[in-house]
């Protein structure tokens, strides 16, 4: 079976093509899709190349959120948005290699919806919204509803990811990832943390430790309550070590990892609790040290 290649020049053409060929596989940087094709793991009838659509490579401020076009590469995200989206930028720096970052995109991570995608934990921690377009219209999918299973997402067959909407950091953010080498490594497990002083909430999420990227809701709620009730959002007092430990334990509790070639389930759970504790301490130290913007 031959594969056909669709190369729309405009977004409208792309949406029309996707409507006509719902099985078409969108490709941009190709860093995920091409691996599947080269391994013969996927034989799509149509490939829908989005690289000609220039507007996808733009980012902009969209009301209270930053709108990151689906074609924005990790390299430009690191260069342009590290101050406003520090968690996502930290995660982006750990993606693949310089060449992969030159071409890979956050939207690609979302499209593949691999539990190991590096961008997922910060997107979850920061309440991102996926902007999906189709010939039928525009749909905003909250990130928590986006991941539906292993390598599955909430997109309809005729939908394409146009952009990701992410609120700029209103507090410190952190990201940590376990890999068994120092470059070009897929995460054994990864953790993203965002403190939201403006709303008194906490975002905490992990990858590679459940069928989908996942938020550690109980841990988020526990920490938010702890910070609010103790008045620490305002006092910026040192964290209670017991609370840090509890936060780590709750993050680990939320995980349902498996044993695989990259690591064991028990190790992943253990590592998550360590990363959760450490990133919390770093984020809080940041918060105590400087006046972090408290509004978007």
């Amino acid at each position, binding site marked *: 079976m031959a594969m056909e290649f669709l190369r729309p020049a405009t977004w409208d053409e792309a949406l029309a093509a996707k409507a006509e060929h719902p099985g078409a596989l969108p490709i941009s940087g190709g860093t995920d899709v091409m691996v599947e094709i080269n391994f013969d793991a996927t034989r799509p009838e149509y490939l829908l190349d989005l690289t000609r659509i220039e507007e996808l490579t733009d980012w902009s401020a969209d009301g209270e959120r930053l709108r990151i076009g689906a074609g924005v590469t990790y390299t430009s995200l690191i260069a342009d948005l590290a101050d406003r989206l520090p968690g996502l930028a930290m995660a982006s720096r*750990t993606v693949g290699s310089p060449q992969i970052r030159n071409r890979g995109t956050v939207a690609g991570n979302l499209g593949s919806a691999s539990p190991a995608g590096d961008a997922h934990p910060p997107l979850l921690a920061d309440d991102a919204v996926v902007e999906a377009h189709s010939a039928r219209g525009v749909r905003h999918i909250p990130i928590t509803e986006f991941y539906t299973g292993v390598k599955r997402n909430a997109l309809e067959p005729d939908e394409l990811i146009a952009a990701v909407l992410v609120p700029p950091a209103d507090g410190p953010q952190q990201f940590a990832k376990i890999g068994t080498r*120092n470059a*070009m490594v897929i995460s054994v497990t990864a953790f993203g943390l965002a403190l939201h002083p403006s709303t008194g909430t906490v975002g905490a999420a992990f990858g590679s430790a459940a069928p989908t990227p996942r938020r550690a809701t109980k841990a988020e709620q526990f920490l938010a309550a702890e910070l609010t009730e103790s008045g620490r959002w305002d006092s910026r007092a040192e964290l209670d070590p017991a609370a840090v430990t509890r936060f780590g334990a709750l993050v680990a509790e939320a995980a349902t990892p498996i044993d695989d*070639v990259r690591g064991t389930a028990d*190790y992943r759970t*253990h*590592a998550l609790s*360590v*990363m959760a504790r450490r990133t919390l301490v770093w984020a809080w130290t940041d918060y105590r040290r400087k006046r972090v913007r408290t509004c978007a």
Partner: protein
Amino acid sequence: MSTPTRTEQNLGADIAGGVGESPLRPDGTLKVTGEFAYSSDLWLTGMLWGATLRSPHPSARIRSIDITEAVRTDGVYAVLTHDDVPGDNLYGLEHADQPVLAGDVIRYQGEAVAIVAADHPETARRAVNKIVVDYEVHEPLTDPEQAVFDSTAPALHEGGNVLRHLPIRRGDPDATADVVVHGEYEVGMQDQAFLGPESGLAVPADDGGIDLYIATQWLHVDQKQLCRVLGMPANKVRLSLAGVGGAFGAREDLSMQAHACLLALQTGRPVKMMYSREESFFGHVHRHPAKMRYEHGATRDGKLVYVKAQIILDGGAYASSTPAVVANAATLGVGPYKVRNVSVDCYGVYTNNPPCGAMRGFGAVQAAFGYESQMDKLADALDMDPVEVRTRNALHEGATMPTGQVVDSAAPVEELLERVKAMPLPPEPNASDLDGYDLRLLPGGVSNTTHGEGVRRGVGYAIGIKNVCFSEGFDDYSTARVTLKVNGGDAVATVYTAAAEVGQGLVTVQQQIARTELGVEQVVIQPADTGVGSGGSTSASRQTYVTGGAVKAACEQVRARVLRQAAKHLDLPASQLRLHAGKIVSADEAVVAAVVDVLGGETITETVTWRHRPTHPLDENGQGNAHVQYAFAAHRAIVDVDVELGLVRVVQLDCAQDVGKAMNPDAVVGQIHGGSAQGLGLAVMEEIQVSGGMVRNPSFTDYLIPTILDMPPMQVDVLELADPNAPYGLRGVGEPPTISSTPAIVAAIRHATGADLTRVPVQPHHITGTP
């Protein structure tokens, strides 16, 4: 030739680029411009592409193979199975036990079953998928210990599952000691992971024979096996070396050679085969996984009294070089130490795991992890410095190995250890004040897992021993043809051997030897092929020794002829003449002729088959002078370990090695860097994970080799203690650095963590203690 006149003149400098210098490598321009033709770059008009069907099961019986649909596919020219092999359907380096195409029995996942030639690689792959094989799937035998000791286990080959058992017995088997340490150790299956996957081009010839252009380590052993498989004499099976994208042992066995030849002969068209990375993991042998039990007994002052060891090497489905791997692990099993009482039992076994064979340092690498871990354990038990316990037992020239062989050249074990110990240490991060410290230099690097929390530094030492060249009475030789003639007014030497350049720089060394021996600047290295006698294998750290020896010997004969000729013309005794920088020099240091004038229009050619001194088989107690030469390297590793997360960063890796004579100092250091990096990989990341006989990670996504951010800077100290038995006094260089690097790094991790690490590669969960 004009009559030479005696002229007083300055002899001038030696010819540049001779032995002991680091001239530019002759293939360098082609390699940096992308013009160097690797085997994967070969191309002929009208050529077909071959593809291979491999068994998805590690153990099965083939009931039937239906190729109907594959044959019918448009663009397919041939589909071959075991029935189509004209000669013997078996190959192997020492034991021909591996089918070229599986007949009725499947012994490992990835075993070749059928091959296809088509006009497009994609067509060939699709046709492969249309071949229907009916398998009766069996339970695989995957536990090597079961293969040795369980007599009820199914025999995978005639003669049972123990391919070789080599006992070494020396001294008193009942010796006792004050201090005894036990240990059980495991080494995972490492892959050579050369960067250029297997590939080659087979071209049918008009004489009914075949020409194969191939990336290999040993043209003649390929040829010998191909003749048997194809049922053809050697003059019909001609091999030429194509560009080799790394080897490290993985190209010592056949991969696609026979398949491409069969398809080319069947179709009458050139056939190219080129493995993907995934197929490469199934297409070549790997490093033997090992299970080792050691018991070391010592006096209270740290002198070894006895060593007992059992080493089980999993050879997987076929023999490959397992017998030689067993010999190395057994004979070098106690390491570079003097021990009076030794009892080693080493087994190489068949299982349904992937076949294992040659990889850099084979046998010695596995044993070194065992004996060096034991030396550290002994140091702990004695509360002694780990270098001290080693130097107290250090092997030296004149000492006796457990095989009874006396070490008859330099064995600077103590000196190498002291040298690495004396090298400057890198600065240590101050955990309480990391302001300004580049956090990316901590374990976890850019992944931001620590800002100093849990990080501890450790230092570890190890030393290893390796035999150089082939052992146990093997007729190990190389052939060199050297020609000298005048070309464009200059004397030009041409060196022709079948020895495989695989990246190590053999072509440079050959040029250097010819320059030094013949005093000519221009030396052409002919492409290697089977048109000249065997060069032997590019393995066992032997090529500079043996092919270097052959080139030297051939040059010496050419030189003698030039001098005889000059003597005749000059009417002087040849014994009073010598060659220097293109000139004939008399006993009283006067230039009496130019080489170009002596040569005139004549071409002088000499071909020499050169052997190192003989070795001998081992007797039933593992006694005998089995090895030609021993080589030694020591490492010191400095690591930072995040003890809570189990992540390791090797901060510095230092090495001291005795190379006898640094033929090309830069190339020597390059070997030490590269070999050390492969040892680092085995220490902390590299393993083919096999479960139930199935490979779980056949890709570079999940088989991790060190990146530049994993491999730290090295301090390297090269000793040159000449071996009087070897050409130029040289000692094989390639393997020793791979051997001691792994145990040194693990020792450093133990030092940092206190964890009892008994398996490599060390995984994070081994350090954290989580299951």
